[in-house]
């Protein structure tokens, strides 16, 4: 068994530098690597390009990095819910590349699985396809999209083991699995870190081969963006 455990978030993020491209899992605030984001804030690394479906809210998630002006460019599918983001974007301080959500996911998966590029129908005929190759297959038009290239991938899982195997929970899975192994170094933080052999090999969502470093996260806030409930009768 190849051991991937590191002592803490600080050891896990060793090597992160100014100007790097970083992938971050999560959908909204669900399944985001909270510990790793806090460490990026602490490290104060700047000029980051962040690949993440969303950009957090003003005081949580990637909003914390935006607040400190650590991000130069965001590659996302949806960036609402964030006033500081809006201000920086409108003032030109922040570059934003909007990518259809399914394309974003597949650009991660392509990087993970060694595909340089793929054809998708999403965005054909829109400004998203401008400057990109388009092509017809079986009477339908497709856009050629290329795999992401990133330095670090920061993901959050529910359970993990020493070998780096990961299990996600509910919709906190989202972009996390496809980002594993999609960057040069993949850092996984987990709510529960167990010895190798405790996870059923049949129930593992992402094998440890896609994970470079794993650590037990702490103090998870798991903030809810839209608390919707119904009354009991």
């Amino acid at each position: 068994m190849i051991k991937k455990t590191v002592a803490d978030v600080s050891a896990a993020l060793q090597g992160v530098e100014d100007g790097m491209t970083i992938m971050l899992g999560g959908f909204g605030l669900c399944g985001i690597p909270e510990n790793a984001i806090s460490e990026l804030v602490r490290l104060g690394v700047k000029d980051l390009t962040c690949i993440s479906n969303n950009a957090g809210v003003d005081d949580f998630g990637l909003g914390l990095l935006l607040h400190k002006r650590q991000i130069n460019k965001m590659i996302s599918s949806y960036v609402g819910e964030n006033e500081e983001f809006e201000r920086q974007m409108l003032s030109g301080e922040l570059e934003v590349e909007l990518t259809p959500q399914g394309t974003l996911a597949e650009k991660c998966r392509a990087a993970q699985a060694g595909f340089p590029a793929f054809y998708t129908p999403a965005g054909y005929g829109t400004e998203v396809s401008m400057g990109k190759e388009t092509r017809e297959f079986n009477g339908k038009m497709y856009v050629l999209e290329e795999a992401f290239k990133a330095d670090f991938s920061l993901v959050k899982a529910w359970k993990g083991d020493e070998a780096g195997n990961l299990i996600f929970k509910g919709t906190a899975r989202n972009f996390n699995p496809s980002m594993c192994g999609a960057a040069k170094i993949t850092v996984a933080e987990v709510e529960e870190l167990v010895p190798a052999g405790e996870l059923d090999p049949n129930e593992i969502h992402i094998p440890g081969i896609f994970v470079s470093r794993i650590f037990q996260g702490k103090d998870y806030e798991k903030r809810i963006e839209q608390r919707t409930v119904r009354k009991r009768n």
Partner: protein
Amino acid sequence: MLDKNGIAKRIAKEVKDGYYVNLGIGIPTLVANFVRDDISVEFQSENGVLGMGPFPFEGEEDADIINAGKQTITTLPGASFFDSALSFGMIRGQHVDLTILGAMEVAENGDIANWKIPGKMVKGMGGAMDLVASAENIIVAMMHTNRAGESKLLKRCTLPLTGVQCVKKIVTNLAVLEVTEDGFRLLERAPGVSVEDIKQATEGTLIVEGDIPEMQL
């Protein structure tokens, strides 16, 4: 004339037994409230869940179980969770039978614009471009005119497009319309709305053939 719930109620009639359905944010979300109890339908949310149920009871919210609108949800028996790549595989691979979403503009050739207004803050397309480019069966739920009273059913979209030639049906506060090769074909009038009212509110080519029935809700 229908309100938002009325539009949702009318669209719910388009949801058939055995359909997997993706509902966009806004009016489409309301559709789930009006689907008949005696048919089997599963709702997919592109963030990675199939078989969504109602909102959780107070105190039972789980931050790890949300829909694409970031709302806390529950799941029904038979539900499943999956990652974003597989989720868009469902969508792109046309396994989802019906997509219902809102729009700023629809053109008579089926083009749709619903993600960007130049000069205003752009929040992003989210999954909308994947959905409209992939789905075989797309229904748009929207008001017939914007706040300034201008038609949202146009000859050509003026806003940046979300997808081309993809909308099949539109349900508005005034009417049900089908997108055909010749333009918007009027299928039904909302209660109390005349064909003339609809003509006035439609900038694109409107095809009116025979008697146009009033919607049955």
